[in-house]
Protein backbone atom coordinates (compact mmCIF):
# COMPACT_ATOMS: atom_id res chain seq x y z
CA UNK A 1 0.00 0.00 0.00
CA UNK A 2 1.61 3.24 -1.07
CA UNK A 3 0.85 5.99 1.40
CA UNK A 4 1.74 8.73 -1.02
CA UNK A 5 2.54 8.82 -4.71
CA UNK A 6 6.20 9.64 -5.35
CA UNK A 7 6.43 13.34 -6.20
CA UNK A 8 7.15 14.23 -9.81
CA UNK A 9 10.66 15.60 -10.31
CA UNK A 10 10.47 19.39 -10.33
CA UNK A 11 12.11 21.16 -13.26
CA UNK A 12 13.69 23.91 -11.17
CA UNK A 13 15.11 22.70 -7.92
CA UNK A 14 13.52 23.94 -4.75
CA UNK A 15 15.79 25.00 -1.92
CA UNK A 16 19.35 26.27 -2.22
CA UNK A 17 20.27 26.89 -5.84
CA UNK A 18 23.25 25.14 -7.43
CA UNK A 19 26.50 26.88 -8.39
CA UNK A 20 26.03 29.56 -11.07
CA UNK A 21 29.06 28.78 -13.25
CA UNK A 22 30.31 31.81 -15.17
CA UNK A 23 27.72 34.13 -13.66
CA UNK A 24 28.28 37.34 -11.72
CA UNK A 25 31.31 39.08 -10.26
CA UNK A 26 30.92 38.13 -6.63
CA UNK A 27 34.33 36.43 -6.61
CA UNK A 28 36.01 39.73 -7.45
CA UNK A 29 33.99 41.75 -4.92
CA UNK A 30 34.39 39.21 -2.18
CA UNK A 31 38.17 39.03 -2.67
CA UNK A 32 38.38 42.84 -2.82
CA UNK A 33 36.44 42.98 0.43
CA UNK A 34 38.91 40.59 2.04
CA UNK A 35 41.93 42.47 0.70
CA UNK A 36 40.61 45.95 1.50
CA UNK A 37 40.36 44.96 5.16
CA UNK A 38 44.14 44.62 5.23
CA UNK A 39 45.25 47.12 2.61
CA UNK A 40 44.42 49.95 3.00
CA UNK A 41 42.04 49.78 5.97
CA UNK A 42 44.11 47.54 8.25
CA UNK A 43 47.27 49.45 7.42
CA UNK A 44 45.47 52.67 8.33
CA UNK A 45 44.20 51.15 11.57
CA UNK A 46 47.77 50.29 12.58
CA UNK A 47 48.94 53.79 11.61
CA UNK A 48 46.08 55.36 13.55
CA UNK A 49 46.70 53.38 16.73
CA UNK A 50 50.47 53.91 16.55
CA UNK A 51 49.89 57.65 15.99
CA UNK A 52 47.48 57.76 18.92
CA UNK A 53 50.20 56.29 21.06
CA UNK A 54 51.86 59.71 20.84
CA UNK A 55 49.28 60.82 23.40
CA UNK A 56 51.53 59.00 25.88
CA UNK A 57 54.04 61.81 25.30
CA UNK A 58 51.48 64.49 25.95
CA UNK A 59 49.34 67.04 24.10
CA UNK A 60 52.21 68.68 22.25
CA UNK A 61 53.64 65.41 20.92
CA UNK A 62 50.18 64.35 19.80
CA UNK A 63 49.60 67.70 18.12
CA UNK A 64 52.90 67.31 16.27
CA UNK A 65 51.83 63.88 15.05
CA UNK A 66 48.46 65.20 13.84
CA UNK A 67 50.23 68.08 12.15
CA UNK A 68 52.69 65.73 10.48
CA UNK A 69 49.94 63.48 9.11
CA UNK A 70 47.99 66.44 7.82
CA UNK A 71 51.05 67.80 6.07
CA UNK A 72 51.46 64.70 3.90
CA UNK A 73 51.30 65.53 0.20
CA UNK A 74 47.80 65.22 -1.28
CA UNK A 75 46.56 64.36 2.20
CA UNK A 76 42.88 65.04 1.49
CA UNK A 77 43.01 62.82 -1.61
CA UNK A 78 44.87 60.13 0.35
CA UNK A 79 42.23 60.36 3.03
CA UNK A 80 39.36 59.74 0.62
CA UNK A 81 41.09 57.25 -1.66
CA UNK A 82 42.74 55.12 1.01
CA UNK A 83 40.49 55.57 4.02
CA UNK A 84 36.93 56.78 3.49
CA UNK A 85 36.05 55.07 0.21
CA UNK A 86 37.62 51.65 1.00
CA UNK A 87 36.17 51.82 4.50
CA UNK A 88 32.68 52.57 3.20
CA UNK A 89 32.95 49.70 0.71
CA UNK A 90 34.29 47.27 3.29
CA UNK A 91 31.61 48.27 5.78
CA UNK A 92 28.59 48.19 3.47
CA UNK A 93 29.61 45.05 1.61
CA UNK A 94 30.45 43.48 4.96
CA UNK A 95 26.97 44.19 6.32
CA UNK A 96 25.53 42.62 3.21
CA UNK A 97 27.70 39.53 3.72
CA UNK A 98 26.75 39.34 7.41
CA UNK A 99 23.03 39.44 6.77
CA UNK A 100 23.18 36.67 4.20
CA UNK A 101 24.73 34.22 6.66
CA UNK A 102 22.68 31.92 8.89
CA UNK A 103 24.53 31.72 12.18
CA UNK A 104 24.19 28.36 13.92
CA UNK A 105 26.29 28.58 17.09
CA UNK A 106 23.27 27.55 19.13
CA UNK A 107 23.35 24.13 17.45
CA UNK A 108 27.05 23.84 16.61
CA UNK A 109 28.98 25.73 19.31
CA UNK A 110 32.42 25.15 17.80
CA UNK A 111 35.35 27.57 17.94
CA UNK A 112 35.40 28.31 14.22
CA UNK A 113 31.67 28.87 14.20
CA UNK A 114 32.02 31.35 17.07
CA UNK A 115 34.81 33.03 15.14
CA UNK A 116 32.45 33.36 12.18
CA UNK A 117 29.77 34.99 14.31
CA UNK A 118 32.21 37.22 16.20
CA UNK A 119 33.71 38.47 12.95
CA UNK A 120 30.26 39.73 11.98
CA UNK A 121 29.41 41.09 15.43
CA UNK A 122 32.73 42.91 15.81
CA UNK A 123 32.43 44.21 12.26
CA UNK A 124 29.06 45.77 13.00
CA UNK A 125 30.30 47.23 16.31
CA UNK A 126 33.28 48.70 14.46
CA UNK A 127 31.03 50.13 11.74
CA UNK A 128 28.69 51.85 14.20
CA UNK A 129 31.59 53.16 16.26
CA UNK A 130 33.65 54.36 13.29
CA UNK A 131 30.62 56.16 11.84
CA UNK A 132 30.17 57.98 15.15
CA UNK A 133 33.91 58.56 15.64
CA UNK A 134 34.51 59.96 12.15
CA UNK A 135 31.55 62.29 12.56
CA UNK A 136 32.50 63.64 16.00
CA UNK A 137 36.27 63.81 15.57
CA UNK A 138 36.75 64.53 11.89
CA UNK A 139 33.65 66.28 10.56
CA UNK A 140 32.21 68.17 13.53
CA UNK A 141 33.60 70.48 16.20
CA UNK A 142 37.06 72.01 15.85
CA UNK A 143 38.57 70.93 12.55
CA UNK A 144 41.78 69.15 13.53
CA UNK A 145 43.56 69.22 10.14
CA UNK A 146 43.64 73.02 10.46
CA UNK A 147 44.05 73.08 14.25
CA UNK A 148 46.22 70.13 15.23
CA UNK A 149 46.96 71.74 18.60
CA UNK A 150 43.39 71.01 19.68
CA UNK A 151 43.62 67.26 18.98
CA UNK A 152 44.38 66.07 22.51
CA UNK A 153 41.85 68.43 24.06
CA UNK A 154 39.09 67.43 21.65
CA UNK A 155 39.50 63.73 22.42
CA UNK A 156 39.86 64.41 26.13
CA UNK A 157 36.59 66.34 26.23
CA UNK A 158 34.83 63.54 24.40
CA UNK A 159 36.24 60.82 26.66
CA UNK A 160 35.31 62.75 29.81
CA UNK A 161 31.88 61.17 29.41
CA UNK A 162 32.19 57.70 30.99
CA UNK A 163 29.63 56.21 28.58
CA UNK A 164 31.59 57.39 25.58
CA UNK A 165 34.76 56.13 27.22
CA UNK A 166 33.16 52.70 27.58
CA UNK A 167 32.14 52.80 23.91
CA UNK A 168 35.71 53.64 22.92
CA UNK A 169 37.15 50.77 24.94
CA UNK A 170 34.63 48.26 23.59
CA UNK A 171 35.14 49.50 20.05
CA UNK A 172 38.93 49.32 20.40
CA UNK A 173 38.73 45.68 21.44
CA UNK A 174 36.14 44.82 18.78
CA UNK A 175 38.07 46.55 16.01
CA UNK A 176 41.39 44.91 16.89
CA UNK A 177 39.66 41.53 17.14
CA UNK A 178 38.04 42.05 13.73
CA UNK A 179 41.37 43.06 12.20
CA UNK A 180 43.41 40.24 13.73
CA UNK A 181 40.86 37.54 12.89
CA UNK A 182 40.42 39.12 9.47
CA UNK A 183 44.12 38.64 8.71
CA UNK A 184 43.84 35.05 9.84
CA UNK A 185 40.79 34.55 7.60
CA UNK A 186 42.58 36.22 4.73
CA UNK A 187 45.49 33.78 4.97
CA UNK A 188 43.11 30.82 5.21
CA UNK A 189 40.83 31.83 2.33
CA UNK A 190 43.52 32.93 -0.08
CA UNK A 191 45.34 29.64 0.38
CA UNK A 192 48.35 31.07 2.22
CA UNK A 193 47.83 28.79 5.23
CA UNK A 194 46.04 25.68 3.88
CA UNK A 195 47.44 23.18 6.39
CA UNK A 196 45.89 22.76 9.83
CA UNK A 197 49.23 23.31 11.52
CA UNK A 198 49.97 26.43 9.49
CA UNK A 199 46.55 27.84 10.32
CA UNK A 200 47.00 27.10 13.98
CA UNK A 201 50.43 28.70 14.17
CA UNK A 202 49.31 31.73 12.21
CA UNK A 203 46.37 31.96 14.61
CA UNK A 204 48.81 32.52 17.47
CA UNK A 205 50.65 35.15 15.44
CA UNK A 206 47.40 37.01 14.70
CA UNK A 207 46.26 36.75 18.30
CA UNK A 208 49.56 38.14 19.57
CA UNK A 209 49.59 40.95 17.01
CA UNK A 210 45.95 41.85 17.65
CA UNK A 211 46.46 41.88 21.40
CA UNK A 212 49.53 44.08 21.11
CA UNK A 213 47.69 46.51 18.84
CA UNK A 214 44.73 46.56 21.19
CA UNK A 215 46.98 47.33 24.17
CA UNK A 216 48.62 50.19 22.28
CA UNK A 217 45.17 51.61 21.60
CA UNK A 218 44.02 51.18 25.17
CA UNK A 219 47.20 52.83 26.48
CA UNK A 220 46.41 55.83 24.27
CA UNK A 221 42.94 56.00 25.82
CA UNK A 222 44.56 55.79 29.26
CA UNK A 223 46.93 58.64 28.41
CA UNK A 224 44.12 60.89 27.26
CA UNK A 225 41.82 60.18 30.17
CA UNK A 226 44.14 59.71 33.13
CA UNK A 227 47.78 60.55 32.36
CA UNK A 228 47.29 64.21 31.44
CA UNK A 229 44.17 65.42 33.27
CA UNK A 230 42.88 68.80 32.09
CA UNK A 231 45.57 68.98 29.44
CA UNK A 232 46.15 72.52 28.14
CA UNK A 233 45.98 73.32 24.46
CA UNK A 234 49.65 73.41 23.51
CA UNK A 235 51.19 76.29 21.64
CA UNK A 236 52.71 74.93 18.46
CA UNK A 237 55.03 77.95 17.99
CA UNK A 238 58.23 76.80 19.75
CA UNK A 239 58.41 73.69 17.67
CA UNK A 240 61.03 73.64 14.87
CA UNK A 241 59.25 74.26 11.60
CA UNK A 242 59.44 70.84 10.10
CA UNK A 243 62.52 69.67 8.27
CA UNK A 244 65.52 71.99 7.97
CA UNK A 245 67.80 71.66 5.00
CA UNK A 246 71.39 70.69 5.80
CA UNK A 247 74.13 73.04 4.71
CA UNK A 248 75.13 72.44 1.11
CA UNK A 249 78.34 70.44 0.65
CA UNK A 250 81.03 72.31 -1.20
CA UNK A 251 83.00 69.95 -3.36
CA UNK A 252 86.57 70.83 -4.11
CA UNK A 253 87.23 70.36 -7.79
CA UNK A 254 89.18 67.25 -8.54
CA UNK A 255 87.89 65.45 -5.44
CA UNK A 256 86.02 62.20 -5.54
CA UNK A 257 85.15 62.03 -1.84
CA UNK A 258 83.52 65.24 -0.53
CA UNK A 259 84.27 64.34 3.07
CA UNK A 260 88.01 64.13 2.38
CA UNK A 261 88.73 67.15 0.18
CA UNK A 262 91.85 66.98 -1.86
CA UNK A 263 92.05 63.19 -1.92
CA UNK A 264 91.61 61.34 -5.15
CA UNK A 265 90.92 57.65 -4.99
Amino acid sequence: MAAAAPPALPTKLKGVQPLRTGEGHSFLWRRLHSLSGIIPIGAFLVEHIVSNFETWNGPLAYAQQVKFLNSLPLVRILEWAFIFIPLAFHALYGVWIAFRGRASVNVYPWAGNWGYVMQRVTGIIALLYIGYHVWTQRFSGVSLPENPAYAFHKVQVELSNPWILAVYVIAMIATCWHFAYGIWLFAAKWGITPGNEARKKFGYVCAAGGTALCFLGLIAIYSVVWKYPNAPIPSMAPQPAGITEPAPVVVTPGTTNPSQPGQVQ
Partner: protein
Amino acid sequence: MAAVAKTIKVEIKRQSSPDAKAVTESFEIPYRPNMNITSLLGEIALNPKTITGADTTPITYDSNCLEEICGSCAMLINGKAMMACSALVDKLLGAHEHGQQPDLAKTITLAPLSKFPVVRDLAVDRSVLFENLKAVKAWVPIDGTYDLGAGPKQHPQIQEQRYPLSNCISCTICMEVCPQFNDATGFVGAATIAQAKLFNMDPAGSVLKEERLRALAGDGGIQECGFAQNCVQACPKGLPLTEAISDMGRDVFVQQVKDFFTR
Protein backbone atom coordinates in the same frame (compact mmCIF):
# COMPACT_ATOMS: atom_id res chain seq x y z
CA MET B 1 9.16 -8.03 40.84
CA ALA B 2 7.80 -7.24 37.43
CA ALA B 3 10.39 -5.41 35.42
CA VAL B 4 9.21 -2.09 34.10
CA ALA B 5 9.30 -2.26 30.30
CA LYS B 6 12.27 -0.22 29.22
CA THR B 7 11.50 2.08 26.31
CA ILE B 8 13.17 4.69 24.16
CA LYS B 9 11.25 7.92 23.59
CA VAL B 10 11.52 9.43 20.14
CA GLU B 11 10.01 12.59 18.67
CA ILE B 12 9.96 12.80 14.91
CA LYS B 13 9.19 15.78 12.73
CA ARG B 14 7.05 14.46 9.91
CA GLN B 15 5.66 15.84 6.70
CA SER B 16 3.45 13.79 4.41
CA SER B 17 4.40 15.52 1.15
CA PRO B 18 6.78 18.27 -0.05
CA ASP B 19 4.21 21.01 0.52
CA ALA B 20 2.36 19.59 3.51
CA LYS B 21 2.61 21.14 6.96
CA ALA B 22 5.16 19.56 9.28
CA VAL B 23 3.87 17.85 12.43
CA THR B 24 5.68 16.19 15.29
CA GLU B 25 4.79 12.65 16.34
CA SER B 26 6.06 10.91 19.47
CA PHE B 27 6.91 7.25 19.70
CA GLU B 28 7.94 4.84 22.40
CA ILE B 29 10.02 1.89 21.31
CA PRO B 30 11.01 -1.15 23.40
CA TYR B 31 14.63 -0.74 24.47
CA ARG B 32 17.29 -3.04 23.13
CA PRO B 33 20.98 -2.39 23.60
CA ASN B 34 23.21 -1.40 20.67
CA MET B 35 20.52 0.08 18.44
CA ASN B 36 21.21 2.77 15.89
CA ILE B 37 18.75 5.34 14.52
CA THR B 38 17.98 3.32 11.40
CA SER B 39 17.10 0.26 13.46
CA LEU B 40 14.96 2.48 15.66
CA LEU B 41 13.09 3.67 12.56
CA GLY B 42 12.79 0.02 11.52
CA GLU B 43 11.10 -0.75 14.85
CA ILE B 44 8.57 1.99 14.19
CA ALA B 45 7.88 0.53 10.75
CA LEU B 46 7.19 -2.85 12.38
CA ASN B 47 4.57 -1.33 14.62
CA PRO B 48 3.61 2.14 13.38
CA LYS B 49 1.77 3.43 16.44
CA THR B 50 2.40 6.74 18.19
CA ILE B 51 2.95 7.04 21.92
CA THR B 52 -0.81 7.34 22.45
CA GLY B 53 -1.43 4.09 20.57
CA ALA B 54 -2.91 5.82 17.51
CA ASP B 55 -2.16 4.20 14.16
CA THR B 56 0.19 6.08 11.89
CA THR B 57 2.30 5.47 8.81
CA PRO B 58 5.87 4.18 8.95
CA ILE B 59 8.51 6.90 8.82
CA THR B 60 9.98 7.59 5.40
CA TYR B 61 13.75 7.98 5.42
CA ASP B 62 16.67 7.30 3.12
CA SER B 63 19.13 4.57 3.93
CA ASN B 64 20.95 1.90 2.09
CA CYS B 65 24.32 0.62 3.25
CA LEU B 66 23.79 0.86 7.03
CA GLU B 67 27.55 1.30 7.42
CA GLU B 68 28.11 5.00 6.77
CA ILE B 69 29.29 4.57 3.24
CA CYS B 70 26.36 5.33 0.94
CA GLY B 71 25.71 8.76 2.40
CA SER B 72 21.94 8.58 2.13
CA CYS B 73 20.79 8.61 5.76
CA ALA B 74 21.82 12.10 6.94
CA MET B 75 19.22 13.74 9.19
CA LEU B 76 18.99 15.98 12.23
CA ILE B 77 19.38 13.85 15.33
CA ASN B 78 18.81 15.84 18.51
CA GLY B 79 19.05 18.89 16.27
CA LYS B 80 22.46 18.05 14.84
CA ALA B 81 23.22 16.72 11.39
CA MET B 82 24.38 13.11 11.63
CA MET B 83 24.24 9.82 9.79
CA ALA B 84 21.33 7.77 11.14
CA CYS B 85 23.10 4.46 10.62
CA SER B 86 26.17 5.40 12.62
CA ALA B 87 24.28 7.33 15.32
CA LEU B 88 24.05 4.94 18.26
CA VAL B 89 21.02 5.14 20.48
CA ASP B 90 22.88 4.27 23.69
CA LYS B 91 25.38 7.03 23.02
CA LEU B 92 22.64 9.52 22.25
CA LEU B 93 21.09 8.63 25.60
CA GLY B 94 24.30 9.46 27.42
CA ALA B 95 26.01 6.06 27.60
CA HIS B 96 29.26 7.11 26.00
CA GLU B 97 31.47 4.40 27.41
CA HIS B 98 31.11 0.66 27.59
CA GLY B 99 29.17 -0.42 30.67
CA GLN B 100 27.43 2.91 31.19
CA GLN B 101 23.64 2.80 31.40
CA PRO B 102 21.65 4.87 28.91
CA ASP B 103 19.38 7.48 30.41
CA LEU B 104 15.95 6.38 29.18
CA ALA B 105 14.28 9.51 30.50
CA LYS B 106 15.86 11.41 27.61
CA THR B 107 13.98 11.87 24.35
CA ILE B 108 15.67 11.50 20.98
CA THR B 109 14.42 13.98 18.37
CA LEU B 110 14.62 13.32 14.65
CA ALA B 111 14.01 15.85 11.92
CA PRO B 112 14.85 16.12 8.21
CA LEU B 113 17.91 18.16 7.18
CA SER B 114 16.82 21.78 7.37
CA LYS B 115 18.38 23.19 4.22
CA PHE B 116 17.03 20.76 1.64
CA PRO B 117 13.48 20.43 0.35
CA VAL B 118 11.61 17.70 2.20
CA VAL B 119 10.28 14.88 0.06
CA ARG B 120 8.50 13.13 2.91
CA ASP B 121 9.20 12.77 6.62
CA LEU B 122 12.98 12.42 7.00
CA ALA B 123 13.73 12.03 3.29
CA VAL B 124 15.02 15.17 1.60
CA ASP B 125 15.94 16.09 -1.95
CA ARG B 126 19.70 16.62 -2.08
CA SER B 127 20.03 16.95 -5.85
CA VAL B 128 21.68 20.36 -5.42
CA LEU B 129 24.90 18.51 -4.54
CA PHE B 130 24.61 16.44 -7.71
CA GLU B 131 24.06 19.61 -9.74
CA ASN B 132 27.08 21.24 -8.10
CA LEU B 133 29.28 18.21 -8.80
CA LYS B 134 28.17 18.41 -12.43
CA ALA B 135 28.93 22.14 -12.51
CA VAL B 136 32.56 21.53 -11.50
CA LYS B 137 32.88 18.42 -13.68
CA ALA B 138 33.84 16.23 -10.75
CA TRP B 139 34.91 13.34 -12.90
CA VAL B 140 37.76 12.03 -15.04
CA PRO B 141 36.90 12.48 -18.72
CA ILE B 142 37.63 9.06 -20.17
CA ASP B 143 34.75 8.60 -22.60
CA GLY B 144 35.82 8.65 -26.23
CA THR B 145 34.82 7.18 -29.55
CA TYR B 146 37.84 4.93 -29.36
CA ASP B 147 39.81 3.13 -26.67
CA LEU B 148 41.85 5.76 -24.85
CA GLY B 149 44.20 3.17 -23.47
CA ALA B 150 45.63 2.99 -19.98
CA GLY B 151 45.53 6.10 -17.84
CA PRO B 152 48.66 7.95 -16.74
CA LYS B 153 50.59 6.69 -13.72
CA GLN B 154 49.72 8.18 -10.40
CA HIS B 155 52.48 8.66 -7.87
CA PRO B 156 51.83 7.29 -4.40
CA GLN B 157 52.43 10.76 -2.92
CA ILE B 158 49.57 12.13 -5.00
CA GLN B 159 47.44 9.11 -4.15
CA GLU B 160 48.01 9.74 -0.47
CA GLN B 161 46.80 13.30 -0.78
CA ARG B 162 43.82 12.31 -2.86
CA TYR B 163 42.65 9.36 -0.84
CA PRO B 164 41.08 11.29 2.08
CA LEU B 165 39.19 13.45 -0.42
CA SER B 166 37.90 10.39 -2.22
CA ASN B 167 36.15 9.28 0.98
CA CYS B 168 33.28 11.74 0.46
CA ILE B 169 29.94 9.94 0.58
CA SER B 170 27.85 12.91 -0.66
CA CYS B 171 25.85 12.97 2.55
CA THR B 172 25.53 16.82 2.43
CA ILE B 173 26.18 17.18 6.16
CA CYS B 174 28.97 19.68 5.45
CA MET B 175 26.42 21.80 3.57
CA GLU B 176 23.69 21.44 6.19
CA VAL B 177 25.95 22.68 9.01
CA CYS B 178 27.47 25.54 6.99
CA PRO B 179 26.14 29.01 7.93
CA GLN B 180 26.89 30.21 4.41
CA PHE B 181 24.97 27.40 2.66
CA ASN B 182 21.49 28.90 2.38
CA ASP B 183 18.91 30.36 0.00
CA ALA B 184 20.46 33.82 0.12
CA THR B 185 23.99 32.84 -0.94
CA GLY B 186 23.44 29.67 -2.93
CA PHE B 187 26.90 28.64 -1.75
CA VAL B 188 28.25 25.54 -3.45
CA GLY B 189 29.38 23.93 -0.17
CA ALA B 190 32.52 22.18 0.98
CA ALA B 191 31.91 18.76 -0.62
CA THR B 192 31.95 20.08 -4.18
CA ILE B 193 35.08 22.15 -3.56
CA ALA B 194 36.82 19.09 -2.12
CA GLN B 195 35.78 16.97 -5.10
CA ALA B 196 37.06 19.62 -7.51
CA LYS B 197 40.42 19.39 -5.74
CA LEU B 198 40.32 15.57 -5.87
CA PHE B 199 39.84 15.56 -9.63
CA ASN B 200 42.23 18.45 -10.25
CA MET B 201 44.92 16.30 -8.63
CA ASP B 202 44.12 13.31 -10.77
CA PRO B 203 46.72 13.00 -13.54
CA ALA B 204 43.96 12.33 -16.09
CA GLY B 205 41.28 14.49 -14.48
CA SER B 206 43.55 17.54 -14.34
CA VAL B 207 42.82 18.20 -18.01
CA LEU B 208 39.60 19.89 -16.81
CA LYS B 209 41.37 21.78 -14.03
CA GLU B 210 40.91 25.26 -15.48
CA GLU B 211 37.21 24.68 -16.14
CA ARG B 212 36.69 23.54 -12.56
CA LEU B 213 38.52 26.56 -11.19
CA ARG B 214 36.48 28.90 -13.37
CA ALA B 215 33.25 27.22 -12.32
CA LEU B 216 34.12 27.75 -8.66
CA ALA B 217 34.48 31.51 -9.25
CA GLY B 218 30.87 31.83 -10.40
CA ASP B 219 28.18 33.25 -8.12
CA GLY B 220 27.73 30.94 -5.16
CA GLY B 221 31.30 29.78 -5.62
CA ILE B 222 34.22 29.35 -3.26
CA GLN B 223 34.22 33.06 -2.35
CA GLU B 224 31.07 32.60 -0.29
CA CYS B 225 32.98 30.49 2.23
CA GLY B 226 33.11 32.31 5.56
CA PHE B 227 35.56 29.84 7.11
CA ALA B 228 33.31 28.92 10.01
CA GLN B 229 34.88 25.45 9.65
CA ASN B 230 31.72 23.62 10.65
CA CYS B 231 32.10 21.38 7.60
CA VAL B 232 35.34 19.85 8.79
CA GLN B 233 33.95 19.37 12.30
CA ALA B 234 30.79 17.65 11.13
CA CYS B 235 31.95 15.58 8.15
CA PRO B 236 31.38 11.94 9.12
CA LYS B 237 34.22 10.79 6.88
CA GLY B 238 36.76 13.26 8.24
CA LEU B 239 37.58 14.91 4.92
CA PRO B 240 40.24 17.67 5.13
CA LEU B 241 37.67 20.20 3.94
CA THR B 242 39.19 23.42 5.24
CA GLU B 243 42.49 22.51 3.67
CA ALA B 244 40.75 21.80 0.37
CA ILE B 245 38.88 25.12 0.48
CA SER B 246 42.08 27.00 1.27
CA ASP B 247 44.02 25.29 -1.53
CA MET B 248 41.22 25.75 -4.02
CA GLY B 249 40.79 29.38 -2.93
CA ARG B 250 44.35 30.01 -4.01
CA ASP B 251 44.02 28.05 -7.25
CA VAL B 252 40.77 29.79 -8.21
CA PHE B 253 42.35 33.18 -7.53
CA VAL B 254 45.45 32.38 -9.58
CA GLN B 255 43.23 31.15 -12.42
CA GLN B 256 41.17 34.36 -12.33
CA VAL B 257 44.33 36.49 -12.50
CA LYS B 258 45.68 34.37 -15.37
CA ASP B 259 42.40 34.62 -17.23
CA PHE B 260 42.30 38.39 -16.70
CA PHE B 261 45.68 38.86 -18.33
CA THR B 262 45.70 36.15 -20.95
CA ARG B 263 42.18 35.54 -22.15
